[in-house]
């Protein structure tokens, strides 16, 4: 475990020969007394691939993403990100959480929210710089949010909030993006913008692992699909 992961520069660069994400018989348990939230998951996602995690609510999709992001401890099995343990390689992993995880009434504007995605590159005591501002500006333009940049985050619609979170995930500059249902309950315009952004990430050889409910587009949009049900792996195919 890296004792000082938040210090500006990446101290554990990606191992170029390792899969972007690899898990073997992975189990994750929220509390020791309960049954595991996910159990026996085996999966390898290569750099540049797009992988879907599919399944009903409570299947364990979000749990797997949080474990990969280093937000949950591993109970059994093994999980590695570019050859490192989760939480070690923080620069290489960006995580888009569900909207409900954030206090949208907090007094910050959209630009500031997106700017927090650059903090990983600054670390303690350092201020954001012009490079960070440029990165945020580009992400806002890409997601059609420039006109809303100064709006308080609670005044944004659900779709705009989702795009704001994706913009923050982009400015993180990671090679692996973990997206927790980015297309859930969003308007058509947001859906189109997010899909176009995902296509752009594919051309940039970024690895995307995405939880989704939309089973219709799994074959066309993803290189690999992992089906989960009640915390267990039902099926995996490429």
């Amino acid at each position, binding site marked *: 475990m*890296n004792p*000082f*992961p*938040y210090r500006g520069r990446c101290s554990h660069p990606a191992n170029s020969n390792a899969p972007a994400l690899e898990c073997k018989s992975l189990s994750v348990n929220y509390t020791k007394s309960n049954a595991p939230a996910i159990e026996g998951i085996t999966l390898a996602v290569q750099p540049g691939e797009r992988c879907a995690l599919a399944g009903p609510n409570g299947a364990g999709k979000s749990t797997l993403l949080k474990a990969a*992001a*280093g*937000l949950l401890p591993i109970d059994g099995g093994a999980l590695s990100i570019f050859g490192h343990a989760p*939480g070690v390689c*923080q620069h290489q*992993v960006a*995580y888009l*959480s569900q909207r409900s*995880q*954030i*206090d*949208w009434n*907090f*007094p*910050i*504007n959209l630009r*500031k929210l997106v700017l*927090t995605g650059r*903090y*990983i590159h600054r670390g*303690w*005591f350092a*201020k*954001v710089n012009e490079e960070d501002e440029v990165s945020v500006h580009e992400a806002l333009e890409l997601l059609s949010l420039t006109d809303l940049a100064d709006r*308080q985050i609670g005044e944004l619609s659900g779709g705009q909030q989702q795009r704001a979170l994706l913009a*923050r995930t982009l400015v993180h500059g990671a090679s692996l993006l973990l997206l927790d249902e980015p297309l859930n309950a969003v308007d058509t315009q947001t859906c189109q913008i997010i899909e176009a952004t995902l296509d752009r990430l594919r051309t940039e050889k970024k690895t995307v692992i995405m939880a989704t409910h939309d089973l219709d587009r799994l074959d066309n949009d993803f290189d690999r699909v992992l089906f989960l049900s009640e915390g267990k792996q039902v099926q995996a195919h490429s």
Partner: protein
Amino acid sequence: MNLELFTEPLQYAFMQKALLAIILAGLNCALIGTYVVLRRMAFIGEAFTHTLLPGVVFAYVRGFQLFWGALGAGLLTALSIGWIATHKKVREDTAIGVVLSTMFALGVLMMSFVRSFRDFGSLLFGSLLGITSSDLVFISATTLIILATLRLIHKELELTSFDPDYGQLIGVRPNRLRAILLLLIALSVVSAIQVIGALLTTALLITPAATACLWSKTLSRTMALATSIAITFGIVGLYCSYYFKIASGAAIVLGCSACFLISWLFKKIRT
């Protein structure tokens, strides 16, 4: 307006000290109070004002300055609450309620052994006009610590206030920042108890920040407005206390509360 109304009381050293103390204590409480309000930690702020009592009585019995007793009890409370938050065996608000009432009861019991409630009156209800030079040194040191800490870790405190998961992802460790914030709350409460009293300090911590939250859409503006409100009504309360011979702490708190009420009504009518 006659300027002498403002300058005449300042010829006295005790009024100069009181003015400086309320400005610094207002600054401390408003800055930290903004985080307390936005993180929904008002109950913790209230708890601090009660848990200081046994520390104060202990200091009195042992014969050292009451402030150090209050500071010790405040830091102990901060560490206890931080520990409880990390080990989630019981709900945090429940644990705080238990700690609050236990510490306060312990303080009252200790007071009954001392057999004198009068000696603690200034700490319970404030004594702005009785501020000493050593009080001012402590309050100023607290202000420096708070300003330096916020200057250094403001962006991380802000991030973990609205999105702790993302903070955890990038390695910021929200629990440790929360512990630091608890220590800052303890310091700001202790710095204000001589000014407006332990029982009313929560108001200086919460009310200016709550009022500012009604008007501001960015954190820095919220902090600036909360500070302006706390200092303005602090000074108004001080002068009211001087001219009308009323309790300064109560005058300050009622001024802040009136400001909140007017703001809230204005916002409610407008929307």
